[in-house]
C-alpha cells in the first residue's frame, strides 16, 4: 500500500481528533474486480438531530465508472454542512495555518554587532563638524539598525478551539453550497491508470484540483497509483482535514465512512461539556 497524503497543515484536525483511531472496514478489490452495483444502502442516522433545522441532502456517488453514477441520497447534518458561511472565520483559520509554522529569518545587526566603529571618527571639537563617537552609530550609512527585524521570529499562536471548529463547518458548508463537495461510497477505482481518474474528474466537471478524503490513512492501491503522478489530485485521511487544504483544492471528495467520522467528531465537540479541555494553550508545556 502506498500513502500519498497532503501531510502539511494537518494540525487542524489532528488536534481535534487526537484520541481517535477508528479503523474502517473496506473490501480491497483487485484491478479486474469491478465493484458490484449496490442498489440498497443504509440511510444515515444523524447524531444530535435538530428540531428546527432540516437535514441537507447529497447524492451518494461512485468512482467505479467514468460517468457519474448516483447510488442514492444521503442526509447531512445541518450544523456541519449548513453552517453560517463565515468568511472571516475561514480567513482566520487560513491565516493561523500559514502563520503558526512560519518563522521569519529576516535579520539586521545592532550597532555593536556591525564590524568596526570602535574609534572616534574625528575629534569632538575644532573641525566644525557634528560630534560623533562611532561610524557604526544608527545615524551612519552602514551603521547598526535600531528596532530592525531579528532572527528567528516565530509567529506561532493557537486559534481558539471553537474558531477552529467553526472554520471546519464554515468551509464544509461553503464547499457543499457551491457544489464542490461530493460523497462517494469508497475510493476504489477499477483501474490504476492516471488517465482514468483524469477523465472521471473531467466528465463530472470536478476540479481541476481535487482532494480525496478517506477514513483511513492506508488508501486503496489503485487510487494511490493513479493519483501519484498528478499533483493536483491529493489523498488525505479524515484526521488531516483542514480549512487550508479544502480551500486549496477546488473539489472535495469524501467517502461515506470519512463523512460519518468527520461529522461525528465535529458534532461531539460542539456538544461536549467537560470544561477542562478548553484550558488556554501554553507554549513550552509538556
Amino acid at each position, binding site marked *: 500500500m502506498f500513502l500519498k497524503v497532503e501531510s502539511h497543515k494537518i494540525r487542524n484536525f489532528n488536534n481535534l481528533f487526537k484520541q481517535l483511531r477508528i479503523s474502517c472496514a473496506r473490501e480491497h478489490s483487485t484491478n479486474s474486480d469491478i465493484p458490484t452495483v449496490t442498489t440498497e444502502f443504509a440511510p444515515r442516522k444523524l447524531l444530535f438531530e435538530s428540531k428546527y433545522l432540516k437535514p441537507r441532502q447529497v447524492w451518494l456517488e461512485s468512482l467505479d465508472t467514468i460517468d457519474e453514477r448516483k447510488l442514492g441520497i444521503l442526509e447531512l447534518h445541518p450544523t456541519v454542512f*449548513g453552517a*453560517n458561511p463565515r*468568511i*472571516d472565520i*475561514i480567513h*482566520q483559520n487560513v*491565516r493561523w495555518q500559514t502563520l503558526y509554522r512560519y518563522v521569519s529569518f529576516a535579520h539586521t545587526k545592532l550597532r555593536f554587532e556591525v564590524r568596526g566603529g570602535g574609534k572616534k571618527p574625528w575629534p569632538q571639537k575644532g573641525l566644525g563638524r557634528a560630534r560623533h563617537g562611532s561610524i557604526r552609530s544608527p545615524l551612519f550609512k552602514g551603521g547598526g539598525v535600531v528596532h530592525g527585524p531579528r532572527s528567528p521570529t516565530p509567529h506561532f499562536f493557537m486559534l481558539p478551539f471553537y474558531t477552529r471548529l467553526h472554520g471546519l463547518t464554515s468551509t464544509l*458548508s461553503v464547499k457543499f453550497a*457551491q457544489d464542490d463537495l461530493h460523497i462517494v461510497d469508497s475510493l476504489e477505482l477499477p483501474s490504476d491508470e492516471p488517465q482514468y481518474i483524469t477523465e472521471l474528474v473531467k466528465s463530472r466537471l470536478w476540479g481541476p484540483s481535487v482532494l480525496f478524503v478517506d477514513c483511513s490513512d492506508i488508501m486503496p492501491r489503485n487510487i494511490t497509483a493513479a493519483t501519484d503522478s498528478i499533483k493536483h489530485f491529493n489523498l488525505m485521511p479524515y484526521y488531516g482535514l483542514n480549512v487550508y487544504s479544502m480551500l*486549496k483544492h477546488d473539489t472535495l471528495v469524501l467517502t461515506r465512512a470519512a463523512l460519518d467520522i468527520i461529522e461525528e467528531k465535529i458534532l461531539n465537540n460542539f456538544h461536549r461539556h467537560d470544561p477542562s479541555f478548553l484550558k488556554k494553550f501554553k507554549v513550552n508545556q509538556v
Partner: protein
Amino acid sequence: MSGSKEKALNLLRYLPRISLTNIRDNPGAKMARKRGRAQHGGDKHGDGNKGSGQRQNFMRLGYETGNNPFYLRFPKEPYYKGHHLKRQYPPLSLLELQKLVDLNRIDPTKPVDLVAIINSGMYKMSVDQHHFGVNLTDEGFEIFEAKINLEVQWASEPVIAAIEKAGGVVTTAYYDPHSLQAIVNTKKFFERGIPIPRRMMPPADAIEFYSSAANRGYLADPEEISKERFALAQKYGYLLKRIEDDPDYEMLIQRKDPRQIFFGLNPGWIVNLKDKVILKPTDEELLEYYAS
C-alpha cells in the same frame, strides 16, 4: 440568524468559488500595531499628557491633609467582623439542579453528592475561599420534579419539602476543607497518590445543624428523620410517597458513612489511576485509625 444563514448559503451558489485568494477578515477586525519610538513604546507611563495628571499630587482616598479623617472619626461598626472565618456555601438553586438533571449532566439514578454536582461542570467552589459546599436554594421549587437521593451541605425547609414531594430524599452533610480539597478536583487528588482522608466531624458551631432531623442532618437519628419527613408533608400539604414501595428503593436509601468522602471508596484507600487499581491498608494501626 437562520434566515440570513440560508440567504448567505443560497447566494454562494451564484458567487465565484471561495478559495485561498478571495477570503478576508471582517473590515476593521484587525488593528495595525504602531511601533512607539522609545523604551516603553513612547508612552506617558499612565500619567496622561502634561498638566495635573503628571504634576499634581493626588492624595490617597480619604486622606484629609492631616485632619482626623472622616472614616476614622467615628467608632466603627464591625459588620464584617470574623468574615474571614465564616463558612461560605455558594448557592445552587433547585431550578439549576433540575436543569442539570434534564440535560443529563447529573445522573438521577445514582445518589447525587457534591462530587456529582461539581463534575457536572456547572457549579464552582473553591476551598481556599472558605467555601464549604452547596447551599441549595428554593428558586424553582414549584417546578422541581426530579426524584433523587441528594446530599448537599445546606438546605432550607421549603427546599427539603420540594425534594421530598418529588419522591426523593435529601441529606445535609458536612465536609471539612481537606475532604473538600479531594472533592473539588477528584482526578488531581487521586494523581497525588495519597490515601483518601477520613472526613472530620463538624465544628462545634455546626454540629447542631448536622445533628438535627429537621435539617435532614447526616448525624441525625433516622427514625427522627422519618417523623420529620411526615411532619413536613403535613405542614406543606403533600402526600409523602413511601420510599419502601419505590422501585429505586436501594438507590434512595444509600448514604455515606460520616467518615466517608466518596461513594464506594473508604478512607485510607489509595486510588491508582495509572494501573487502575485500588490499594487498601492492611496494617492494624491504619485500619483502626481509618475505622469509623
